[in-house]
């Protein structure tokens, strides 16, 4: 993650036609060091505001690899490496740690998020490929403190034991129920087969999805 590097003044594409040096210095000074890795979401909010508020081009034009992502219905600007995976970006730069790393290589499903409504393993999905697409994570499910019916049913049916797999399970279930509002037990199992639950809590996970289906 080269987020730790302070942007080079002479970097190509860094033409500064809007904010002037003062804003640039503020950003540069603030994001120096590893602080950005931990609290990037705060600064991205600032950038987002500056990028959108007055209609001027934002920092995207000034930093290399600066991408605009749409996450949980909000535009987020983030600087990424070419090889950076979406789970890394979500967790370490956008502060969305509900998405988990369970295996780093598309074996367990703990990192499942939705891209354009489809469940994908974000541990093996390049962040740059998410540009222009709607990304939904478990943090994007509740609205105004009101939980999504799948979240409600996962609480009631004890859908999570250790619950490390739960966010990924919920995202797979959401994709299923958006396509098929009245799934059979077998269809639920098929939809969750890419999500490993080491606690072996599958019966409760299936019940949770079926219960949510009834309510949606």
């Amino acid at each position, binding site marked *: *993650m*080269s987020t*730790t590097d302070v942007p080079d003044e002479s970097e190509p594409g860094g033409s500064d036609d809007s904010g002037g040096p003062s804003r640039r210095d503020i950003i540069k000074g603030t994001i120096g060091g*590893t602080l950005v*890795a*931990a*609290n990037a979401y705060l600064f991205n909010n600032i950038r987002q505001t500056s990028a959108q508020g007055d209609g001027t081009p934002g920092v995207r034009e000034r930093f290399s690899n600066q991408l605009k992502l749409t996450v949980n219905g909000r535009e987020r600007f983030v600087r990424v*490496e070419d090889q950076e995976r979406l789970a890394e970006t979500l*967790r370490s730069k956008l*502060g*969305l*740690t*509900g*998405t*988990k*790393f*369970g*295996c*780093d*290589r598309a*074996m*367990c499903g*703990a990192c499942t998020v939705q891209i354009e409504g489809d469940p994908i393993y974000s541990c093996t999905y390049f962040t740059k490929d998410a540009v222009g697409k709607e990304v939904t*994570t*478990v*943090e994007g*499910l*509740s609205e105004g403190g009101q*939980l999504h019916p*799948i*979240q409600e049913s*996962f*609480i*009631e*049916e*004890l*859908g*999570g*034991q*250790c*619950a*490390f*797999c*739960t*966010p990924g399970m*919920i995202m797979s279930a959401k994709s299923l129920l958006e396509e098929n509002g009245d799934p059979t037990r077998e269809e639920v*199992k098929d939809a*969750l*087969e890419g999500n*490993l*639950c*080491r*606690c*072996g*809590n*599958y*019966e*409760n*996970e*299936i019940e949770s999805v079926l219960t949510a289906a009834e309510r949606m």
Partner: protein
Amino acid sequence: MSEHNYVGNDFEVPDGRAKVTGEAKYADDYQFDNLLHAKTVKSPYAHARARSIDTSAAEAMSGVEAVITHEDVPDAAIGEPVLAEEPLTFGYPVAAVAATDEYTAAAAVEAIEVDWEVLDHVVDPIETLKPGSPNARPEGNVPTGEAGGEGAEGQGGAEAAADTIKWENADFSGDFPEDPGDFTMEWNWGDVSEGFENAETIYEDTVKAQPQPTNPMEPRSTVAEWGTDGHVTIWGSSQSISLTHTGVAGMIEKPPTEVTFICNFAGGGFGSKGTAYPQMAVPAFLSREVNRPVKIRGTRREEFHWGNGRATYIARTRVGLDGDGNITAMEIDAVGDAGAYSADALSTLSSGFNSLTQCWQPETLRFRGIGVFTNTPKRWPQRGPGQNQAALAIAQVIDEAAKQAGLDPLDVCLQNSPENRGPAGAERLPMTSAYLGEAYELAAEAIDYEEKRARSGTREGSKVYGVGIASASHQSGYIGFDGLVVVHTDGTVEVRQGAGNLGTESFAAVARMVADTMGADWDDVEVSWGSSDKSSFTLGQFSSNTTFTEGLANVKAAETAVQYLKELAAQELGGTADAYNVENHEVVHGQSGESISFAEAAQAAVDAGGKYTAEEIPEQYQESLVPLTIAAASDAVGQGLVAFGKSTGEDLDGFVTSFAGAIAEVSVDLETGKVVVEEMANYNDSGTVIHPESFKAQVEGGAIQGIGYTLFEQYRHDQDTGIPVNTDLYKSKPPSIHDYVSGDLHVGAVGEPDPFGPFGAKGVGEPPYGAASGAVAAAIKDALGTSFSEFPVTPDKVLEKVRAGEVDS
């Protein structure tokens, strides 16, 4: 409905919302300013010594802030070192770096040059006993210390001692060596030769219960911050708070008072994260160099290399049955694998032996065992460590012995079930309660055993059906631990428990018991978990013991709180303390009906001070409480009613033993070799069920893991190189949602209360695993008419039997 307000009834668990919103913080989820990322330099050999380590290139790299090697950390005797000069397994670390990001850390690891001296290795447990074979450890090939004991299950570590024992005159050509040499453990009940003389049927078989990686979903990540004032804060993934707090403090050579341990959510552990583990100390020692928070983000590969797991258990089992099906004799010779680190093989053997006495009650027995070291990852307790290997290994033997005696295997199981206080263990001590026979009967009814037995051996296309029965047990309750209940002046009752939050919800069950004991309203009860600063000292959250152990200690604290509340009410309203009762979050006079609320009573406690607010520690607790428990109350002293509890020897008479009896029906496809568990019933003697939903989740989860053990999961090492060959989830392989039972998985409880358990409770988590595992093994054998000596029963093993003509046709 339960006779209690809360115990026995379902409820919304206190951590449920956080788990479904992504708010639940696991070790890798905490955000820090100024964070450094750690990675380790690992051995590429099964056994090698680092002659020298050149870190200069790494240290010169931009972004690298700290580099440490084995020279910078303490020695670890037979336990796992934090970093090793002589790594005894492939993938064990010798050095570590901390850098400003993971990529830089990875590049720095690549830049470190290690000059390796490659040493001889051995990865097969039996091989270690052959004359002339290499020793996995420099000290020897056999752990000889005391077993860690089932209570600690080696989580505290067995005594560190090792010796070299080779079986010089043994014949190694069979599944188990003939004429073996010395064993390091021997148990006897009566005279086993006499027992065999009284038998009409004698059957013997050797089974190897295989090693397996634990693979919790959350790899073991840790963040450590070593402050400039010397105080160390550690955010880790652990099943326990109290024992991990003290354990990691020891590992980094700090008094516990200078360490804070935080774990709000653990993403699974199944024993492997029972207490502190050396991976926790890597970022701590790096942080000591720079006084910045350092994170090591565990990877799945590392989980295989140093995440530890179930020990190999190779047993030659011989049983004798009389004409009624009584087991007159049981003889076992067993080899347990400790891996390279720890002496846990001894605990595996003693735990397995103990469970066999509990479940089978042989009239006579001789159990002999020897643990060995191999150059494979540390073997450590994993859900029923020893008990569940033993359950798997004996299931086919009982099935075949019954059949040779002309008896139904279920009758043999019932015939040998323990009496209620039946003896257990090497010393033949009583159990607190035992209802295994009832569990078998409930399982038989749930699965319609007669129907399944009638279908046994029948064919449907290429599939053949079979039915099997098995049991397992676990010692699941301990005394000598602390409880802490605080009643705040707003009336809130707070349970400060020290077990942690593994996902079993037993920490919440403990609070339910406190609420019932105190007549409290559940809405005004809070349970604190996750930080050592507020933890009463308790045993770790393993050994299926939290509900009993911590329940008992905190019910006793709740009883203390009730006594204080009554005394304070008497002071406020008059009369004697005995005249008052607690109900509906009030202290009520039994006759007049006059009452004060818990909030008013807590204020009265603050006004009175002394013992009521822990400004004075009552004499009975001064000696008995662990100082950490008193420290955990410190912020409440003088601020509310503070009540301690301590469970003692007076609270227990015998082994607290939980049981499971399971019956499985399988189909085996003779063309593809695929085994399908068609239906299973898994019934448990867990005492009173405190929380039905989580009881069900534990039994189902245990059953599913047990099925995985028999059918899929393994950990294989290449003999020539000692390198593990299946370090991916899809190779090792935990069951997926399509992999467990195709039909119904019936689970349930006997529900008989234990006379010593809090509210009659015992434990749940581990026995359903072993019972499931054994039942599937016995059912496959029943279907095919032939036993398997190695597990898991993968399709290739089935087809090998078919081709060899061993299968009944």
